[in-house]
Every structure is written in C-alpha cells, then in structure tokens.
C-alpha cells in the first residue's frame, strides 16, 4: 500500500509531465478505440451488403451441393420454409434456384447468372426488389417475366416489354430453354450482377431446369449478424427435428469466403498500422519514463542503501509507469468511448455520393461498433507497447550501483 502511495506521489511530482504522458497514452488509446470501432462498423455494412445482395446470413442447402453447386444436388424445400419462418431470430427465408444460362435477343447472346426466385419471399431477404430501376419487380405469379441487370439489358438491346430467350442445361442434363418477357431492369451498383444476372420466377426455373420442385438454396435473413452462430444452431436443430439429415446449414462466411478474408486482411493490416502508431507514441512515453527515472537516480540509490532489494526497487519504478499507463487508459476511455458511442448512435457520414449510394440500397453512413474485440485489441496494443517500454527504466533500476547513484545529484 505504501509503495503504491509512494509511486502515486512520485507521479504527482512532475504533474505537467505526468498529465502530458497520460494524455498521450489516452489519446493513442482513444484514437484506437474510435478507429477500430469505425472499422468494425464498416464491416457491419459490408456484411449487411453481402448478406442482403447475395447469400442471406445463412443458407440451407442439400448436403454436397456446396461448393460445386451442381443442380442435381437439390434440396426438397417441403416444410422447411414454414418451419424456419417461425424461429425467433429469422427475418425472412427465400427459396432459390441459382444457375446459369445463355440469354439472347436477336443477334445478341450473353452468358448470365439465373436467379430463380419466389418474388414475395425474396422481398423479405434481399434488396433485389428495391433496386428495380425501370419497369417493376416480378408479380407473385408472374411465370413469364424476367428482370435483367441494367448492363445486361443494354448489351442485349432489351427494354421493358421485350422478349428474350434463354438456353441452359437442366439438373438431369437435358436442355433447358424458354421465352421470357422483360418486366424490369435492376441496378445493384455491382458491376458483376448488373452485367450478368437475371431474375426469373422460381417455378419457371424449376420447370425449365428439371428441378422437380427442388431448390439450390434457401436463403435466411436474420435480425443480426452477431447472433448468427446461435441462429445457425437453432435452424440445425429444427432440421434435425424434421428428420432432414440431408440438409446442411451454411453461414455466409463459408459461402462467400472472399468477403470474410477481405475483412480479415483489412482488420489485420489495420492492427499493424495501429501498432506502428502506438509504437511512435511509445517512444515518446519511453522518453518520459526514462526522464522520470534519471531525475531520481540519487533517490533510488538511497532506497537501495536503506536495504530495499533491487528487484523490489525495480518493481516500484515499474509500478509508477503502470499507474501512469492505467491513468492514460482511463483518460482514453473517458474521452474515446463517449465520442465513439455518439457515432455508434448517429453514424458518421462519409458522404460518398449520397444520391448514388442511396439508390443502391447502401448507405454512406458508417455506424461505429464498440465491440468487446475493439477494447481488447486497443487495450492490448496500448498496454503491450507502453508496458514493454516501461520495462527499460525498471530493469535499469535493478542494476543501479548505490554509491554511484548516491553521488548523482
């Protein structure tokens, strides 16, 4: 207790210097919390986008369908949609047949991804309905309609009301072909989809591609990404309850490994950058710690002369630095958390062409995310570097020669 008191008072000795170093540590920590939270927030957006545009949070597929995605490995959706709908975390579930075909109008033929969708259910899972720019989304029973990506439509020279034909290969190897009428054009704002995707009624695709009522996936949207593992277990349990051992539940990271990897790479390179930043601050702090030590060599010599064991002296010197670091972190928490929380609630608008982003159902506003991970990493980096830096004077203190220190004035 008295050592703590001594260390504490030593910090108070040069108040200006202590306050400055606490502020520096606090600033570094607060900045890390803020930028890490924003980074996590941007992932939330990215994930939300992936989930809404592509996969849903979870998918139920026939075991063995993924990753080859053969049409022949098809899932019988009977009863599953209704059962999954009832689960508490589930916002929506949509059956799909995802395949590919050649589409032509007149002279022009292009390859395209075919989304066989249930129009009503698709609205509860993906943003497709909201990005229709011309014409209209498919009506619930529209078996002849097709929605084209804007670029694909342009390439084909097709407009709303035009007729197109498609040709592909069915689940059983037979030829799949048909005629469709363009009902609308969608613009996701993602080149790939706008250039090479089309949406058709599920029943039409099932029939043309000999799916016999089967689907390639049931996409499930949840109320939050955070609860995905729990929801995945619940869906699994439900399927088991129905005796559907043939169905598997896959999360979006499995289905879109690129997105997950992208996030991981971004986060890790962020961590390296933060560590470098804190290292720079650390050198400044090191200087402060060292000065506080040098100024007191004489006094430390006295403590040794009084019989203080060198290791205990070393601990006392370290304790001072630890207190200062702790103080800095408190300052950082007090400053960084409210600011970050403000942007968690209100979001930060990066204003990247608001009109455009709004059109694509995305948002240019990022909401910071104060996740435990953020505190763990920000705290970890700041603590590791500042406490490592504080070791230097502490270790030096253990090697002081009493007489030399006593002569030091």
């Amino acid at each position, binding site marked *: *207790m*008295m*050592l703590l*008191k*001594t260390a504490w*008072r*030593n910090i*108070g*000795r040069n108040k200006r210097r202590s306050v400055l170093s606490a502020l520096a540590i606090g600033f570094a920590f607060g900045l890390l919390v803020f930028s890490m939270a924003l980074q996590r927030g941007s992932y939330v957006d990215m994930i939300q986008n992936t989930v809404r545009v592509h996969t849903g949070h979870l998918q139920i597929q026939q075991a063995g369908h993924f990753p080859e995605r053969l049409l022949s490995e098809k899932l019988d959706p009977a009863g599953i949609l209704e059962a999954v709908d009832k689960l508490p975390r589930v916002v929506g579930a949509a059956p799909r047949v995802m395949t590919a075909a050649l589409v032509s109008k007149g002279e022009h033929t292009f390859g395209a991804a075919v989304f066989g969708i249930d129009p009503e259910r698709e609205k509860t899972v993906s943003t497709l309905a909201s990005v229709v720019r011309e014409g209209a989304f498919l009506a619930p029973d529209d078996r002849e309609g097709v929605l084209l990506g804007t670029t694909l439509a342009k390439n084909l020279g097709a407009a709303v009301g035009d007729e197109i034909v498609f040709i592909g290969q069915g689940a059983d190897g037979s030829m799949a072909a048909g005629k469709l009428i363009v009902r609308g054009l969608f613009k996701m704002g993602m080149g790939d989809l706008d250039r090479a995707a089309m949406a058709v009624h599920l029943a039409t695709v099932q029939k043309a591609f000999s799916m016999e009522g089967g689907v390639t996936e049931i996409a499930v949207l949840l109320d939050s990404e955070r609860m995905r593992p729990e929801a995945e277990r619940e869906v699994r349990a439900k399927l088991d309850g129905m005796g559907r051992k043939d169905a598997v539940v896959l999360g979006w990271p499995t289905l879109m490994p690129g997105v997950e990897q992208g996030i991981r790479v971004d986060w890790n390179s962020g961590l390296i950058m933060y560590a470098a930043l804190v290292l720079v601050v650390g050198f400044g702090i090191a200087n402060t710690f060292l000065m506080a030590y040098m100024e007191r060599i*004489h*006094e430390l010599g*006295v*403590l*040794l*002369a*009084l*019989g*203080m*064991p*060198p*290791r*205990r002296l070393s601990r006392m010197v370290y304790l001072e630095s630890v207190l200062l670091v702790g103080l800095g972190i408190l300052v950082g928490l007090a400053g960084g958390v409210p600011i970050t929380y403000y942007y968690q609630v209100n979001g930060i608008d990066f204003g990247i062409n608001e009109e455009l982003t709004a059109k694509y159902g995305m948002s240019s506003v990022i909401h910071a995310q104060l996740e435990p991970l953020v505190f763990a990493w920000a705290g970890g980096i700041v603590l590791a570097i500042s406490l490592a830096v504080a070791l230097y004077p502490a270790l030096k203190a253990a090697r002081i*020669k*009493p*007489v030399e220190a*006593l002569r030091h004035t």
Partner: protein
Amino acid sequence: MTIVETKGVTKDYREGRTDVHALRGVDLKIGEGEFIAVAGPSGSGKTTLLNIVSGLDSATAGEVRVDGEEISGMRPAALSGLRLRKIGFVFQSYNLIPVLTARENVEFTMLLQGVPAGERRKRALEMLRHVGLEGLENRRPPTLSGGQQQRVAVARAIVTRPRLVLADEPTANLDSETGAKLLDLMRELNREENMTFVFSTHDPMVMDYSRRLIRLHDGQVASDERREGEGG
C-alpha cells in the same frame, strides 16, 4: 563479539589518468556495542570506509566481514538484505524521500522489513517524538529545516534497532544543542540495546561522546584510541 572486521582494505578510484588511493590498507576490528568516532581531514577516506563497510561500495582489495559474513563477493540483492536486517545508515546529506512525510520516511525501512502497518506507525511516531519532532510528523522533507531533516534521517536509521548504525557526519548540519540531544539518544540505545555506532565526523563533540576514536589520514588509520570515562 566482533561485528565488523576489515583486513587490508584498499580502495582506488580512477580519476581520469591517475589513481586516487582513497583507502590504503585499513585493518579494523569493531566489537558489538562500541560507540566509535572516525575522524580525519576532508578526503582522508571516512565516507569511503563507511560505504565499504555497509556494502554500498566494494573494496578494491582486502576483506570485509560484517557480523561474521564476508561481504566482498556478495550479490547486490544479498547486500541489500544485509543492510535491511542489520545496518542503519545516516547520510551526510540526509537523503530523505521527498514525496513521503517525516513519519512515512521513518516507517520506510520497517515497511521493507514487513512490520505491520499499525506497529510501524506507532514506532515511527514514538521515534519522532524521541528526536524532538513532535507535531512535524506529517510534513514532507522539503518543508523541514536541515537540522529537522537530519533528525528524521537519524530516526529512520535507528527505529528498526539495527545491530550496526553507520552515520556519516550526522551532526554536521545541527546546532550543538540538537546535536547533543541526538547523541544522547544514540548513546542510550548503545547502552540499553547494545547497538553499535560508527560515526564519521569533524565535530569535536561527537569525538567527545565516542568511546573509541579512530583517526584516518590519507586512507590509513593514523591512530586508534579507546577513551574510557565519558558516560562509563
């Protein structure tokens, strides 16, 4: 019983190109319960000798035994332990810890020894009263006069009742009345608790109080006389 024994102790300092021979062959035997003044002109090696006996500094050659233990080859941690258990030190320049109050300074060695807080506090207050600092217990050293600080330093050195107290010019900054009071106190501890005191000094009063007077000259023992009578 011998508490300190030096045999052929020398200490050389390198000052630039030349060697300074601070001690040149000191042989001393100090018995338990002695009350000794080490006198000698400035630069004769008094401080050096005390530093070597307490293990703060190491001898260039020779043997130093404290309470039977040879300390020349001891590791710093062991020397610290030895000082903590057996030696009280009063410095020429007080060397109090500036961030601690007078009482806390006196408590500090007891803290290191692991004396419980309540006991520590009681003994520290008692000792401060003994050295005439009642009422100043909660003042910090920079707010005390030199003489008051030296009294705190003495209190800190003797409060743990160490077997051996080494004091480097303890009265140098005190008026003769305060000096005499401190010497009386130490004399009392010497008599009642058989604590051993070794002072380095220029002060005739300290020499008067001592029962053995060792004179150093140029790093050697010039004379070593026992003085009976004073105080019995």
